[in-house]
């Protein structure tokens, strides 16, 4: 997030798009609901589903799945047309406005309505409300990123916020809500194929030399492959060994069948986890690790706040903290790692990671610090881009609309969107063992609109068969207007109805994120 969680409560307009916040970030959703019900803030929801937040919204734009760029261009079209954009801000702090203007010109509200189904008047109202606010915070999550145009969608969010001067101010910003607890930290720490910690590029000689010195090793200048590319390379036999720490890609990857085949090809699969997951079952070596309650360390939350976790109970059997396991293996391979504690590793991190340079366990004992925190006197940073963007001026990206990779047709006439529910998390490894969550939500459901259900002869609670070009599965139907006509929604928490048997592995060319939010399916009574 460019801004802080707390600021959401004290802003004037909140634009929430592609985030089902009440289920995925419940404690942040309370901030949104308080802003609306106690502080008179206005909420605009842009989402194909009738999520709970809609109840609190002043305006709800229900776009067809995957038409986000068109909707954003339409909003900007209205804002430019009506001259209500932040002219001074655009002039002094941004570049590329003319190109943007040119592209959005043709996205008239009428044209956008044709593409997205969002009524002309609603689009105009939303544009005026957002642009006219003194402070406006834009929130988004996987509903924006899990498309082949994910990167375009994200850039469109930034375009809109910059156009209206809503960046670099308290209560403003473009705020991605991170799904998993430490996505932010994993990225910050360089668990990415193209960058070292703090996003220092592996192709930069300067960065590489720095790390070669710090680590006493020769480093590769060739950017690596992403998760999905790794699975493909394994399938082709180019990648022969994969070391997996704490993930279950077999259930979370698009197109499971393909990934399973790829993993079976490997000469060596090492999986380090707390349970024998679907992926671990295929492994040649399984290493038992300690869970978050059994070790020390830090997580970085969605607002860039680095916070402690603390060992509360002993790990079962011989299980060890992941950092101890990596150290042990590394030492065995002739590169000794002899950290006595997680804190010692953090000291090393601070040395090579400029944005974490001022973070010590002592300083975050009571309350976490938000990076950038460049030195030990620095109080941390509540919101980013206060004066200038990291690259200088903020750059507008003129973006054309591209439809989703797979649209409904005669054989697969409906759209499937996937996501999470409040009661479960990710592939369910942890929450499915929680009595309470299972009591509340014991199985996967296919959310389907009443008119579709009627047309297909499907009753609430009946088992239905869902088929895509890639696979088929069965689950119980839930008849609800939360799903729009022509669209169904399923979660990916249950391996019994593993929705990624169906999803389309088509990737966003830059973000390499699969299009989990749109694929074409056929639904029938089982």
């Amino acid at each position, binding site marked *: 997030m460019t801004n802080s969680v707390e600021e959401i409560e004290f802003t004037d307009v909140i634009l929430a798009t592609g985030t089902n916040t009440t289920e995925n970030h419940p404690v942040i959703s309370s901030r949104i609901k308080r802003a609306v019900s106690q502080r008179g803030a206005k909420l605009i929801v842009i989402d194909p589903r009738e999520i709970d937040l809609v109840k609190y919204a002043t305006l709800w734009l229900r776009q067809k799945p995957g038409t986000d760029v068109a909707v954003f261009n339409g909003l900007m079209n209205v804002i430019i047309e009506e001259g209500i954009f932040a002219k001074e801000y655009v002039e002094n702090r941004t570049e590329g406005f003319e190109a943007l203007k040119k592209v959005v010109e043709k996205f008239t509200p009428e044209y956008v309505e044709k593409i997205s189904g969002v009524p002309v008047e609603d689009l105009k109202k939303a544009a005026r409300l957002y642009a006219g606010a003194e402070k406006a915070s834009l929130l988004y999550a996987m509903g924006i990123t899990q498309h082949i145009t994910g990167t375009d969608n994200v850039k469109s969010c930034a375009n809109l916020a910059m156009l209206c001067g809503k960046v670099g101010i308290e209560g403003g910003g473009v705020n991605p809500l991170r799904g998993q607890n*430490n996505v932010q930290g994993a990225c910050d720490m360089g668990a990415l194929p193209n960058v070292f910690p703090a996003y220092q590029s592996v192709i930069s000689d300067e960065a590489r030399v720095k790390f070669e010195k710090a680590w006493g090793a020769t480093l590769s200048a060739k950017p690596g492959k992403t998760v999905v590319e790794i699975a493909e390379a394994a399938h082709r036999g180019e990648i022969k060994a994969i070391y997996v720490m704490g993930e279950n890609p077999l259930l979370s990857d698009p197109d499971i069948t393909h990934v399973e085949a790829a993993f079976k090809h490997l000469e060596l699969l090492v999986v380090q986890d707390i349970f024998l997951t679907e992926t671990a079952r295929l492994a040649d070596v*399984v290493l038992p690790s300690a869970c978050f309650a059994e070790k020390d360390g830090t997580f970085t939350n969605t607002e860039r706040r680095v916070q402690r976790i603390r060992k509360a109970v002993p790990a079962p059997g011989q299980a060890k903290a992941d950092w101890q396991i*990596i150290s042990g293996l590394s030492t065995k391979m002739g590169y000794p790692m002899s950290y006595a504690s997680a804190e010692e*590793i953090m000291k090393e991190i601070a040395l090579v990671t400029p944005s974490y340079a001022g973070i010590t366990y002592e300083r975050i004992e009571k309350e976490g610090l938000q990076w950038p925190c460049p030195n030990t006197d620095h109080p941390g940073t509540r919101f980013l881009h206060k004066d200038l963007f990291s690259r200088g001026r903020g750059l507008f990206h003129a973006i054309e609309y591209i439809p989703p990779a797979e649209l409904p047709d005669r054989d697969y006439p409906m759209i499937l969107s996937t996501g999470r529910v409040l009661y479960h998390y990710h592939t369910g490894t942890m929450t499915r063992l929680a009595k309470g969550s299972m009591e509340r939500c014991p199985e996967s459901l296919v959310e389907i609109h009443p008119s579709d259900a009627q047309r297909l002869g499907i009753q609430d609670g009946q088992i239905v068969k869902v088929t895509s070009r890639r696979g088929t599965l069965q689950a119980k139907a839930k008849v609800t207007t939360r799903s729009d006509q022509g669209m169904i929604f399923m979660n990916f928490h249950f391996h019994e109805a593993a929705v990624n048997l169906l999803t389309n592995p088509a990737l966003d060319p830059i973000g390499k994120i699969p299009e989990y939010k749109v694929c074409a399916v056929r639904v029938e009574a089982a």
Partner: protein
Amino acid sequence: MGKTVPLTIDGKDVEAASGQNILEVAHEQGIYIPTLCHYSRTTNVGACRVCVVEVEEAKSLVASCCMPVSPGMVIRTNTPKVRDARRLIVELLWASGDHNCLNCEQNGACELQNLIYWLEIEKPRFPIEHPGYDVEKTNTMIQRDLNKCILCGRCIRACNEIQVNEILDFSQRGSRAKVGPAFDTDYIDSDCYFCGECADACPVGAITFKQARFAGRPWELKKVKTTCAYCGVGCQMDLNVHDNRIVKVTGNRAYEQPNWGSLCIKGRFGLDFVNHPDRLKTPLIRTEKGGELAEATWEEAYAFIAEKLTDIRKENGPESIAGLSSARCTNEENYLFQKFMRAVIGTNHVDHCARL
């Protein structure tokens, strides 16, 4: 800063900020005024009146949590009249419920019990009337024993004003008033999200965590502050540990950012996995493709992996090896993992599954 308001409290002249109430000023001055229904970050409703104080020239005692300060106010917080009034209130509360501390989960952490002790009440002057409600045990997360409810309304305000989940309310008025989900249903039959905010807010043993029942007394529990391992909000919370087991998870409003003590069902009730019998306890090796995974020592596992990785690298180069790190592991572990892949294996094929 607005204008300051001069006043006298327990004989001390102080300057209060305008808009403050008497309770806030007293607390700032280190003067203790007991409270029950007051719950910070929610509306002050003046329901319990144990916070009463004497204000010169006021006709009767005033509830300090609801009374804004005004210039020249002379306040006394601990006169015999005040203590008598508080005693009467507390004795009425005691007598109106089944406050049997012997097996109550809140024993030792109960605000009513503390108040009875502080006010030195031997026993209530009124006969104790058991309200006769059934204890609600219909779900595995929250237990509701309305026989202990003192109708302070904190749970209702926590649910509606803090979480804004809008589940709880009073279902009737007067002496038969009851708190609960709409239409007087059980939690499990309501739309409750099981965030547990109401249980953290309850000052007595009326709303408690079911899984912690008989699992350890408050003074036996060790609270370990940590960060939730589920979503990216990164809620701060206390793991309550007894006998090396996590008994329950509680919010702590004193931790402030980012969640001010609020949690959701995952952080609150989602930790059964920690103690699950299926947890992996020892390394496993499949020595031959197609064979079974068999238990091994760490030494054997490290040796097996090191040998294979070294061979594969020798034969096919470092680009034939890839690593998937995890958005669920710590920063320290992610750092070490990518360092391992880059410095030890020699490849940049390292990613995590967060895009998914």
